[in-house]
C-alpha cells in the first residue's frame, strides 16, 4: 500500500438485514485517498445504510467498515478524521448558520473563528447570521459541506451533495471536491445519478440491491461503453439487407428497423462492433441512400443502468461485470 493510504476506507463483507430485507449484502470495497470516489446505485440500493454503518450510526449484521483501519466509533475526535454529511435537512431551523457551526466547533477541536473560515469556503459568509429555516436546499447543502470541513478532516463522506445545487453550484462543488482530493484527502460522494458525478469522480463503486456490481476507475467503467453506429436510410428493406449481408450486429436495446429515422419513413439501425467508415463504404458500394450516419456513444448512464438493473437471480456474481472491461476495448 502506498504511504498515503492511511486514511483509506475499507468495507469488508458488510451485511445489514432489516427484518426479512437484506439492505446490504456481503459488500466489500476500498476507497483510496487522493481520489474522488463515486458511490453509486439506484434509490434503495443500500448506499445510505452502508454510509450509516461506516459512521457507526447503524450496527452491521455482519462484516466491518473501517476508516484508516479503525471503526468510526473508535476514533478520538471523529470530526478531525471524517467529515460526513448524510442529509441536507439535518439542521435545527431556528439556529443561524454560524451558530450551527459554533455548536460543533468544540467537538471538532477548532476555535470559533474556524466557523467563519468554512462559511467563507462554501460561499455562505453573507448568510452567517440567518436562521437555517429560511435556507434553500442549495444553501443547506453548502452549510452541510461547511460542517464537514470544520475539523479539516482527511476523509470526506458526502451523501448526494449535489442535490438542490444550481448548475453553477454543481461546478463549484466539483472544483472543490477535486481540490480536496488533490490535497490527498479521501473523498466519497454518493449519488443515484452517474451523470451528476461523472465529471467529478476518479473511481466508481456501484451497488444495486445491496450488493457490489462494479468497482473500478471511471476510465475502466467507460470501457464498458461501446460506441454505436447509427445509420438511417429511406429504404428500410435495403438497409436491413445490407446489415444482414455485412454481418453487423445490432445493439440489443437499440432502435430496430422499420419506421423511424429522418422524416419518419425508412429504416434506422444501431450497430455495435463496427465504425462509420466501414458502414459508409459498404452503403456507398451498395448504392444505398443514407440520411444519417453517425457514431454515438452509449453514455455511461446506459452502462450504469445495465449494471444496476435488477439481477435475475440471487447467485449473480458481484465481481463479474468488473472483469468485463478488459475485453470490451479501450476507453474513448
Amino acid at each position, binding site marked *: 500500500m502506498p504511504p498515503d493510504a492511511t486514511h483509506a476506507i475499507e468495507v469488508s463483507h458488510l451485511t445489514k438485514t432489516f427484518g426479512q430485507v437484506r439492505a446490504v449484502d456481503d459488500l466489500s470495497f476500498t476507497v483510496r485517498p487522493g481520489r474522488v470516489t463515486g458511490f453509486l446505485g439506484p434509490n434503495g440500493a443500500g448506499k445510505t445504510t452502508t454510509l450509516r454503518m461506516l459512521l457507526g450510526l447503524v450496527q452491521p449484521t455482519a462484516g466491518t467498515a473501517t476508516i484508516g483501519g479503525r471503526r468510526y466509533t473508535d476514533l478520538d475526535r471523529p470530526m478531525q478524521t471524517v467529515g460526513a454529511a448524510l442529509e441536507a435537512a*439535518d439542521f435545527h431551523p431556528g439556529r443561524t448558520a454560524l451558530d450551527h457551526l459554533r455548536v460543533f466547533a*468544540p*467537538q471538532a477541536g477548532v476555535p470559533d473563528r474556524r466557523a467563519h473560515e468554512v462559511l467563507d469556503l462554501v460561499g455562505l459568509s453573507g448568510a452567517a447570521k440567518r436562521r437555517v429555516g429560511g435556507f434553500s436546499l442549495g444553501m443547506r447543502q453548502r452549510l452541510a459541506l461547511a460542517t464537514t470541513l470544520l475539523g479539516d478532516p482527511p476523509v470526506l463522506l458526502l451523501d448526494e451533495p449535489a442535490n438542490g445545487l444550481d448548475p453553477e453550484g454543481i461546478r463549484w462543488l466539483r472544483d472543490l471536491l477535486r481540490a480536496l482530493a488533490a490535497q490527498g484527502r479521501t473523498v466519497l460522494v454518493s449519488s443515484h445519478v452517474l451523470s451528476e458525478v461523472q465529471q467529478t469522480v476518479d473511481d466508481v463503486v456501484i451497488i444495486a440491491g445491496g450488493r457490489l456490481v462494479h468497482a473500478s476507475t471511471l476510465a475502466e467503467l467507460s470501457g464498458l461503453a461501446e460506441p454505436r453506429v447509427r445509420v438511417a436510410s429511406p429504404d428500410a428493406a435495403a438497409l436491413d439487407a445490407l446489415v444482414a449481408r455485412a454481418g453487423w450486429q445490432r445493439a440489443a436495446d437499440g432502435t430496430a428497423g422499420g419506421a423511424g429515422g429522418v422524416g419518419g419513413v425508412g429504416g434506422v439501425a444501431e450497430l455495435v462492433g463496427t465504425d462509420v467508415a466501414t458502414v459508409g463504404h459498404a452503403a456507398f458500394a451498395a448504392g444505398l441512400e443514407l440520411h444519417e450516419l453517425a457514431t454515438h456513444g452509449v453514455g455511461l448512464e446506459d452502462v450504469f443502468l445495465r449494471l444496476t438493473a435488477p439481477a435475475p437471480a440471487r447467485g449473480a456474481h458481484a465481481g463479474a461485470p468488473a472483469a468485463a472491461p478488459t475485453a470490451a476495448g479501450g476507453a474513448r
Partner: protein
Amino acid sequence: MKDSLVSEYRKIVTTRTWWVLLIVMVGYMAFMGAAMAFAFSFDGAEVTGASGEAVPMDTTTAATTVYTLPSTFGYALPLLVGLLSVTSEFRHRTLTPTLLAQPDRNRFVVSKLVASIPMGVLYGVLGTLATVGAGALAFVVNDTATGLDDGAVWGVIARTALALTVWCVVGVGLGFAMPNQVVAIVVVLAFTQFVEPIARLVLGLNDALAPAGKFLPGAAGEAISGGSFYSATGAGDLLGPAAGAAVLVGYAVVLALLGRFTTLKRDIT
C-alpha cells in the same frame, strides 16, 4: 467529554426556546406569587384544606408557601426546556450530526444531562426571584410580614431554585425516554397538571397509600423546597429536602437510562 458539554450547552442557548419559556416562567411566577400573597394576607383570610377544615396560617407559613410556588406550579417550564433540548434533536433529525460528532452514546446522554444544569439554575433563580419579588411586594402592600428577614426562609427560597434545576435535568431524562416531542409535551402537561395532583390527593386520603404519594416526582420536587402549597393545604406529607432531591435525581437518571437502552440502542436511520 468537555467538548460535548460545551456543544450541548451551545445547542440550548442558540435557539429561541430557552428565553421564550424563561419569559413565560418569570411572568407566570410573578403573577402567582403576587396573587397568592394577596390571598393569604387579606384580613381574616383562611386557607381551606383538603379535608375541608380551615388551615391556620402564620406569617412565616404564608410566606414560605408563596415563595415555594415555583416548585409546586412552575416546574413544568424548566422541565420543558430540558425535554425540548432532547426531543428537538429527534424532531429536526439533528441526532445524526450529533452522533457523528460524539459517537459515544453514553457520553452524549451524560453531556445532555449535565449541560442542562446551567439552564436549570437560570430558571430556578429567576423563576424563584420573580415569585419572591412579586409575593413580597404584595405582602408589603397588605402590611404583612414578608419573612425575608428570616434566614430559614431564604434557605427555603434557595432550595426552591435547586428544585427547579433538578426538574430541568428530569426533562432531559424524559426526553430520552420519550423522544417524540408532541407525545412528550402532552404527557408532561397531563401528568404535571392533572394526573399527579389527583394521584396525590387520592393517595393522601388513604392512610395505607399515603407514603407512596411522597415518592411522586412533584412531591419530591416540593420536598426539596420544604413546605409547599399542597402540604400546607394538607394534601399529604413530604420527604425531607435531601431525600426529595435524591428521589427527583433518581427519576432523571432512571428515565435517561431507559432512553439509553431503548431509543439510543437502536440504529439511527
